[in-house]
């Protein structure tokens, strides 16, 4: 157990790790499995120590087959378990898509709610870490497009803990996207305090609740008046830096961290855009037919009369993820966000 003092050394990775061990402690039916998650503790060490602490029946390595991991998770969930499965990398999760799309997403609906699958599929995703091909995809749109799945993606150390606890406790299947570039980011979070905060929070979406709940519960992480920048996951920290830089140029940007793509907090989106009258959507994934497209469409549908400027997007290019030495040209960065802010119509 961590000590009660807040330090700057709490990493995103340790928050995820503690969330899992706390969930396993709280509920015997929580089991963790995947490739290299046992003895090794996962290639990113997110499951470090779980096998040692809870035994091989609770955290174990499977044969190297993602469909097998997802498919057996379905059976285990049917038979009373709460599986938390790890897909080693974003693109390595694709062999499991049939199980995810055809069963995990649809079982509750197929059986009229009689069989719910409380499965968490953890996926390290996104770029910015110099990863080779198949290690940097932003694949959230595939899952968000599939009805029946929830799609969470934390952007902060606190949310890493709080949202993973909630994902494990929810009766619906959750695809849990972990921005791998944030794994070793640190914050002055006290894990004991987070534990207390989570365990004392009701399963509702009151404004000050940390829970995603049924609404999505997006959070304004920076207040502003001139433009709303909507983002999630790995892009939020980049957006915050851009917002700081924009402030120096006299632009007051409000930043909305979606936290959850599904459920999608449309009301928070509408509130911020109606307040500022301008919107930019930032995400790493390719922009074409993306989560960013959906956000943009919703703003157009709901906030048309409040808009002083067209809604713009800053996303990855519509290309297969580039090789490590070229990724900096692909990923949305502070400069590209600032350029886009400049393109908004600022004259009244």
């Amino acid at each position, binding site marked *: 157990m961590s000590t009660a003092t807040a330090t700057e050394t709490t990493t995103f990775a340790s928050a995820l790790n503690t969330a899992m061990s706390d969930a396993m402690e709280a509920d015997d039916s929580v*089991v963790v499995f995947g490739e290299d998650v046992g003895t090794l503790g996962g290639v990113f060490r997110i499951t470090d120590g779980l096998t040692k602490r809870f035994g091989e*029946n609770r955290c174990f390595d*499977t*044969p190297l*087959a993602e*469909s*097998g991991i*997802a*498919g*057996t*998770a*379905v*059976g*285990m*969930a*049917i*038979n*009373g*378990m709460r599986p938390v499965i790890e897909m080693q990398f974003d693109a390595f999760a694709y*062999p499991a898509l*049939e*199980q995810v799309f*055809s*069963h995990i997403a*649809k*079982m*509750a*609906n*197929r*059986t*009229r*709610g*009689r*069989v*719910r699958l409380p499965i968490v599929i953890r996926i390290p995703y996104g770029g910015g870490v110099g990863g080779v091909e198949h290690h940097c995809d932003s694949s959230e749109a595939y899952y968000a497009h599939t*009805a*029946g799945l*929830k799609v969470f993606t934390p952007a902060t150390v606190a949310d890493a803990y709080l949202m993973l606890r909630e994902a494990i406790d*929810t*009766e*619906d299947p959750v695809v849990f996207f972990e921005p791998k570039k944030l794994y070793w980011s640190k914050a002055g979070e006290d894990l004991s305090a987070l534990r207390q905060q989570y365990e004392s929070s009701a399963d509702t979406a009151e404004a000050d609740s940390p829970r995603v709940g*049924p*609404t*999505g519960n997006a959070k304004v992480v920076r207040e502003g008046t001139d433009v709303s920048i909507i983002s999630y996951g790995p892009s939020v920290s980049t957006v915050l830096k851009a917002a700081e830089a924009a402030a120096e140029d006299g632009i007051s940007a409000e930043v909305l961290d979606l936290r959850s793509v*599904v*459920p*999608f907090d*449309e*009301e928070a989106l509408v509130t911020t855009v109606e307040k500022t009258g301008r919107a930019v959507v930032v995400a790493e994934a390719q922009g074409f037919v993306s989560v960013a497209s959906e956000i943009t469409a919703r703003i157009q549908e709901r906030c048309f009369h409040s808009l002083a400027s067209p809604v713009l997007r800053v996303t990855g290019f519509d290309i297969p993820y580039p090789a490590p030495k070229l990724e900096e040209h692909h990923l949305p960065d502070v400069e590209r966000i600032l350029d886009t802010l400049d393109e908004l119509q600022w004259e009244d």
Partner: protein
Amino acid sequence: MDDPITSPEQGHQKAEQASRILETSRTFGISPEQYMLPAQQQIRMLDPDGSLVPEDQQGTGPGHEYPIPEDDVLLKAYTTLVAGRRINDQNYALVRQGRMAVYPSSHGQEACQVGAALCLGEGDWMFPTYRDSVAVISRGVDPLDVMVSFRGDWHCGYDPKVYRVGAMSTPLTTQLLHAVGVAHAAKLRGEDTVVLAMCGDGATSEGDFHEALNFAAVFEVPVVFFVQNNGYAISVPLSNQSAAPSLAHKAIGYGLAGEQVDGNDMVAVLATLRRAVHLARENSMPLLLEAVTYRMQAHTNADDETRYRDREEVEQWKRKDPLLRMQKFLTAKGLLDEAAETQIAAAAEEVAASLRQAMSAEPEEDPLEIFDHVYTEPTAQLSAQRAQLADELDRAHGEAWAGTEEGTR
């Protein structure tokens, strides 16, 4: 010092499963290979004319011994077989009358269907495919609840947890992994649940078939993989699916035992399945059973079988019909007489009649239910879409038909 050439390095140690197979094979006095490989010939107990095959010609031997089930079990199997055939034919007729959208018939495969249901205990699980309606009904699920999906009013009409029967799976072999997961969860809790995982011959080409057998062997879980090899995957014959000596031969590659049985021989199917379930439970390990049978009718009503097989072949298989064989056998055994036959036929007719009646009634679906089970709590977007549809229905059917207030209808 160990010899680095001959001693296994860490990580290359022989899997525990292999030693478990070794132990089991030792109890039969045979080698692990002899245990894992199917017997020299298909296990068969009844000749096509229904007479008992002499013991030395049944294909059985050490490690491949299958005691003939007790008389009452055989009689129950026959009763269930007759009902199963009647259900198949009734559903075929209902499709022709337009009362059902589609029905993948297991006509000709009923021995496998009945065997699958009767080999399991109450606490065991079954994971069927879309062609296994008769197996699901034989396990006790209300026929109407099974037909809901083919009538087209919902995807699955029964509660899988009540009957311990998975929702009939359409994506091939995906359900085999669910079976492994169910068995694994049971094993972790110290329960001795056996899971029967069903698929067809074409499905053995799918990747999940491989993954399921491998996971089951590595996890050492009691899953009986039951392949109904009916010769065709829609139109494509087995020769296009596999170059293995038999589908049962696939077992040894994963470290589990395989067996091939005459799938139109009710006695042999039941004997091999019961033995497989017993071994799986006793030793906590998976087995693979391939039943060689034949799909007597087209894949579904949408299929034209004359394009890929000739009548002659179908006629040949007619002579191996599982019902007639079992009927002749039980009659000769003195377990079946005309009076019993009449009673069994009447019971089957009753099932068919109630099915007919139920299917002739118009189902009362609630269009708004399509939003209700997607998530435990609807998202804001789904609530809005539900309200939109309710409004459309109100306008189409007169005010408040669907009701704008939740729960009105």
